[in-house]
């Protein structure tokens, strides 16, 4: 995000402190994480110490200071999902993607993460891929869903479409 975009954002949300979390959310949404450069511009613009933004960025779970993959795979570990085998689903995903929860695959395609409840408890276990929620996930279903995601990603790559990596200079 350049300075002009930051300025526009601040103008839209207002510069008072109650807008801070919303501003960070917007950066996170646009960039997929909170790049240091954006945080610096924001702190200058708002005339706040960078440490103040850093405190928020590290306190709240929805922020990341490192780049994330193009797709975010999130396993629900809420209580209802836990008693219905959410952990086994996570184990399988760690195996399928080859990375532990909280990290990103080497090809930057997927970030695997966990969440404590998506509020779809009646359909557990739940997995969310980007904005789509999958209910009553089974081991079989999981491989299929992931395969179709991979395939879509491959096709997109071949076509050279918009899913290509964003510039991620930290």
């Amino acid at each position, binding site marked *: 995000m350049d300075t002009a975009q930051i300025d526009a954002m601040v103008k839209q949300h207002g510069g*008072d*402190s*109650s*807008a*801070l*979390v*919303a501003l*960070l*959310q917007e950066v996170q949404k646009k960039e997929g994480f909170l790049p240091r450069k954006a945080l610096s511009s924001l702190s200058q613009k708002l005339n706040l110490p960078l440490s103040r933004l850093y*405190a*928020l960025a590290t*306190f*709240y*779970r*929805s*922020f990341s200071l490192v780049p994330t993959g193009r797709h975010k795979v999130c396993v629900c*570990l*809420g*209580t*209802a*999902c*836990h*008693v*219905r*085998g959410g952990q*086994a689903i996570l*184990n*399988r995903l760690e*195996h399928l993607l080859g990375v532990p929860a909280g990290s990103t695959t080497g090809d930057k395609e997927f970030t695997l993460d966990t*969440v*404590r*409840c*998506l*509020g*779809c*408890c*009646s*359909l*557990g276990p*739940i997995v969310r891929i980007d*904005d789509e*929620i*999958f*209910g*009553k996930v*089974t*081991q*079989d279903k999981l491989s299929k869903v992931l395969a179709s995601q991979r395939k879509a990603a491959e096709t997109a790559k071949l076509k050279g479409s918009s899913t290509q990596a964003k510039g991620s200079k930290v």
Partner: protein
Amino acid sequence: MNSQTGIASEDALQRWKEKGLRTISPEIPKVTVGLATCGLATGAQAVFDALAEEFDKASFKAILAGTGCVGFCQMEPIVEVFRPGQPRVLYKQMNAEKAQQLAADIISGKVNKPLAMCTVDGYPGVRPSQRIEGVPRLEDLPFYQKQKKIVLGRCGRIDPDSLAEYIATGGYLTLWRVLKDLKPNEIIDQVERSGLRGRGGAGFPTGTKWRFTRKAAGDKKFIVCNADEGDPGAYMDRSLLEGDPFAVLEGMTIGACAIGAVEGFIYVRDEYPLAVERFQRAMSQAREQGLLGKNIMGTDLCFDIRLIRGGGAFVCGEETALIASIEGRPGEPRQRPPFPAEKGLWGRPTNINNVETWANVPWILSHGADSFRQVGTETSKGTKVFSIVGKINNTGLIEVPMGLTLREIVYDIGGGIPSDKKFKAVQTGGPSGGCIPEQLLNLPVDYESLTQAGAIMGSGGMIVMDEDTCMVDIARYFLDFLKEESCGKCTPCREGIARALEILNRICRGGGKAGDIETLEAIGRMMKGFSLCALGTTAPNPLLSTIRYFRDEYEAHILDRRCPARVCRELIRFRIVADKCIGCGACAKVCPQKAITGEKKKPHTLDEGNCNKCGMCYEVCKETAIQKE
């Protein structure tokens, strides 16, 4: 946005009501698909698209609309079909293929009985429909029989984006009458007399809280809707915001009038994008019609609401942490008093209620405090919404009168435990609550009984556990959750959770020692007594309640190095039963350790030395040839 263009008279409300009735009971067929998050997660969008396509192909004239959640999540995706002059029918567990069949039947005017779940009566204020032979009525289904809907009445029935449908079902008439006829103190009297208590968990009398804030000195007052629904297993607030956002809005506006607040906030969990979207749409429609903003309904009342998205921190459900978060700081709680009613947002008097509490307000003022008091028990009035989830047949969102027993909820409404397994416990109140065992199933559900049993009402999540759930693992699970979510400000909570979790992890790994249980109890008592906020004082509840009711399971782990529910990895082993194994190879394929080998169509073998007990083989085996012992 001025009173001339907005809704500012009984006539205007009447016009909107008629407009709403025209879409609720139109002159052409209407098909409604449940498009709340749970519906969408089971493929409701595909159902919607399939219906649209079929209608389009046949050039069939019908209204196709979306709605919230009717609560019976197990049956999602649910479709409601209305034909003028005929009963409304709900169809269950739809998919794109079934939707094609259903579309054909709708076009030819038939009821598809095999797919039908029930018929459903009209709406509040709309004439009830007749019956159809062979299709039960909604209220005859065991899931709905004991329910009473005060706050969920509109969810899944009206289009949550339609202000007209909200008004058609009685909405905003209450606000109009309140603004016209009642003084702020009289509103508070009504709420106080109704006996409404906070639905977010602690159960503080709502009217009393309002009066504190009303009386507090301050140049500006705020009200807040706490929609940071963080208890895992509870989703009533999401469902309400997705299914009936105007009710929350109207409740808050009535509250603002009573308390004298000029600005309101709604703090919504980041994980609920659809709830955010729907509530925002509701707010902008309300503003357009003069129901929010300056001179509401043409009166002197000026009140507006800002929506804040949470950052994903469980502790922000605690009111002082929530205030810190709205003010743009990390969500760390502070000492009370002063209570938010005196010093809340930016040091000004602030009244915080949760979503369900606000949604009760319009009903209380339209039906009267006495009608509300008639529902429930001596100390807990009205209804409560619960999500019944986990190991239970009928999962979903229910609203029942306070005082119903756990047994009625689990067995009569919930239909018992799947696969003939044995009931073990029901967990209420999330990470602040406790596990209630079978011997207490006759406990009436009200604030006091649950607290006495070592649990709490909480926001209403009820997670049912069967014999396959390990109670030591559950205590470990909640402390693991709380370890991440404790803000770390006070030592009893931060260190208490960490030390208790260390001991539990050790017990689950087979390293339990005599005296561990007593140490855990001592840590729990310390946390209860000395933590700064409710997160810390209630954090030991899952631990202490499982020790209280399931001490034998702890002892089995510690003394016998055995996990009776066969959950704790280090205390169990996996085995392939050769007689049952058909050699399909599914287990070998998923084993991350490559510990399973064998030829196709011949019994496989498991190298136990190499097995990391992840349990994936157990999950995929369709022949139950893999056993845990």
